């Protein structure tokens, strides 16, 4: 598509950067396929690592992007339609990344079809992973339908019908909550891992996702309104910032509750928490990260809470970055690794991602970013009415979108 291929030097530079990262990711993945997951730093003691951490964080992003629809609707924001569409496109990109991370973590990805119903032997409803496959793919389909419908109608110069769109949106909201809840239950249901086997896990998942997802959206809104004609009012941005403050308040409170329970009762199940925040028997790889996450989250909370700082774009953006980083640490490595440290036989194996894991992960992030960039590039002009399709037989504008790279 010619329209996607056109852009200024920043656009080309961005695409080139993503392409390099994607190619290096693919090369890393090919080595991993060839030699096995031995190239990662995961071992029997810590059997899930960086891939599953990224997966968990991104499920939160996917869920929260659509959950933004609720405040947008409740407060009757003017640019609600734009917010919905952007949220759904972000959700699609995030889910694609989620699926890629899970596939990268599999020992035999070529046998992935075994997990499908009918074709394979899906262990439903017993396995929460089977539930996750259903809700994640369902969520992907719902969002694809919504986005495709809107763009298709608009591209023909017709107004889309809210009567068609609303049921989809209404379905996607509880579905967004479900993907995050099911993902939390995936860990939560394992009695062998005391750190995960706490009822506070799912609520904390939702609370922290409602911080990182909207924070990411706030940054994207600002970029979008700078580079396109789409109007997103300051009022909408500040309102979302305020909502992030409440979500982070709840997240910090739940964290405090967890912290108190573990440290005051001081049972043997304290060990993973101790490992995270103070180190265990001299092993303390994650300690600086966890305190960084805590300080970032706390700082961002106060920035978002004070009207003066959240309505200043400099401090607002700083807080967004702080909160995304904070939640990425907390809901990524900070959640997955302590499930395995100490291990079920008391072993402490310190884990950190290998070069291959980092390469693959960066590649997947780049794929997600590329998808989202192309979605935007294609959708925004349609949205603002700049791009329209005419009769089916004029072929003058046909082009390959490979030209962009």
């Amino acid at each position: 598509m010619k329209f996607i291929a056109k852009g200024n030097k920043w656009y080309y530079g961005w695409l080139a950067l993503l392409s390099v990262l994607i190619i290096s990711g693919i090369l890393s993945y090919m080595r991993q396929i060839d030699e096995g997951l031995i190239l990662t730093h995961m071992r029997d003691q810590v059997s899930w690592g960086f891939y599953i951490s990224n997966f968990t964080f991104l499920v939160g992003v996917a869920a929260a992007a659509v959950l933004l629809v609720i405040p947008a609707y409740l407060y009757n924001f003017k640019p609600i339609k734009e917010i919905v569409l952007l949220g759904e496109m972000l959700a699609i990109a995030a889910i694609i990344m989620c699926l890629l991370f899970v596939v990268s973590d599999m020992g035999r990805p070529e046998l992935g079809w075994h997990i499908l119903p009918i074709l394979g032997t899906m262990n439903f409803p017993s396995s929460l992973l089977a539930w996750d496959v259903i809700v994640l793919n369902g969520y992907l389909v719902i969002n694809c339908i919504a986005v495709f419908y809107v763009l298709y109608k608009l591209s023909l110069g017709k107004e889309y019908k809210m009567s068609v769109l609303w049921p989809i949106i209404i379905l996607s909201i509880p579905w967004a909550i479900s993907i995050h809840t099911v993902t939390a239950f995936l860990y939560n249901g394992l009695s062998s891992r005391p750190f995960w086997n706490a009822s506070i896990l799912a609520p904390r998942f939702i609370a922290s996702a409602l911080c990182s997802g909207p924070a990411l959206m706030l940054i994207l809104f600002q970029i979008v309104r700078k580079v396109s004609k789409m109007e997103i009012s300051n009022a909408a941005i500040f309102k979302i910032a305020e909502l992030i403050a409440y979500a982070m308040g709840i997240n910090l409170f739940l964290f405090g509750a967890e912290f108190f329970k573990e440290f005051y009762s001081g049972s043997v199940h304290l060990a993973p928490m101790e490992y995270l925040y103070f180190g265990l028997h001299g092993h303390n790889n994650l300690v600086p990260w966890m305190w960084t996450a805590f300080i970032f989250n706390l700082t961002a909370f106060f920035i978002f809470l004070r009207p003066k700082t959240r309505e200043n774009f400099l401090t607002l953006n700083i807080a967004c970055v702080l909160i995304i980083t904070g939640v990425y640490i907390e809901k990524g490595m900070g959640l997955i690794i302590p499930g395995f440290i100490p291990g079920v036989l008391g072993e402490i194996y310190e884990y950190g991602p290998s070069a291959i894991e980092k390469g693959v992960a960066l590649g997947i992030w780049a794929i997600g970013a590329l998808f989202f960039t192309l979605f935007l590039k294609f959708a925004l002009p349609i949205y603002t009415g700049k791009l329209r399709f005419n009769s089916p037989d004029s072929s003058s504008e046909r082009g390959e979108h490979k030209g962009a790279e």
Partner: protein
Amino acid sequence: MPNKSNKDNCARTINRRSFLKGTALGLGSLAVPFGTSDASTWEAFFQKHFKEMNESELQSVITRLEEEYAREYDMNFNIKATGPIPGVKFGYGLDVSRCIGCRRCVYACVQENNQSREPQIHWISVLEFEKGEKWVNIFEEATKYYNPHAVPEEGHFYMPIQCQQCENPPCVKVCPTKATWQERDGITVVDYNWCIGCRYCMAACPYGARHFNWAKPRIKKKEINTEVHYLGNRPRYKGVVEKCTFCIQRTRENPGRYPACVEICPVGARKFGNLLDPESEIRYCIEHKRVFRLKEDLNTSPKFYYFFAT
């Protein structure tokens, strides 16, 4: 990001076909391309779940696997798929007061069950505890990597841990593809051709009994055991999970043999038998000794009993 300096402000036009084409192209690029052609590769790819195969399908799979192994290891394998013996439920006993921590069981198991030597996989972990330390449920004070001049070490005791063959196995519950299940004789097995390597079972197992083939398993030719069971000690693949099967290739035969770990134990600390037979040695131990099972609070109900002889 779109170029803001458009010379014409009028709406750009593309036709509908190219919109659909572009969308299809985008979706199509998500599909993973496949490029293999070998017939046996395809047969392996579409092989059915062990429990869904009928007699003749299973036989043809076994023949194909024997050919594959012959090609790969240059040796003739005998793959059995002997089913559970009616009226049998296997149980295991381990006398903690006798174990001297020599780890002979660990290596006998590796030898018998064709575990990878490089990287090493052990189905049995022997933990060493200092007398007076926390143990049984909390292994934090234990060490698996003890390396003294001679065992047993003064002031220490040992506890070997392997698959506890739970009656209520958390690993089976979580497997997304039903690639692992409990057989009628109580043994939890894995179909290595059905496992997708997601490792959810490893996260779920409270005993660290499940092991993953992080790399292609490597065994010296002269150390390979060619008497194998489909659900047990046949050579595994890179990227699948494996575990103790109470030596299914020995214990289900008639005449049966004890698991390799029971056979090798120099102090007779290991007991094995049929839980459903009131006359069995394992039943005697359970009824007459002070027995305990690991992590009882998790309700996994292991069929692996630790006891004290003295």
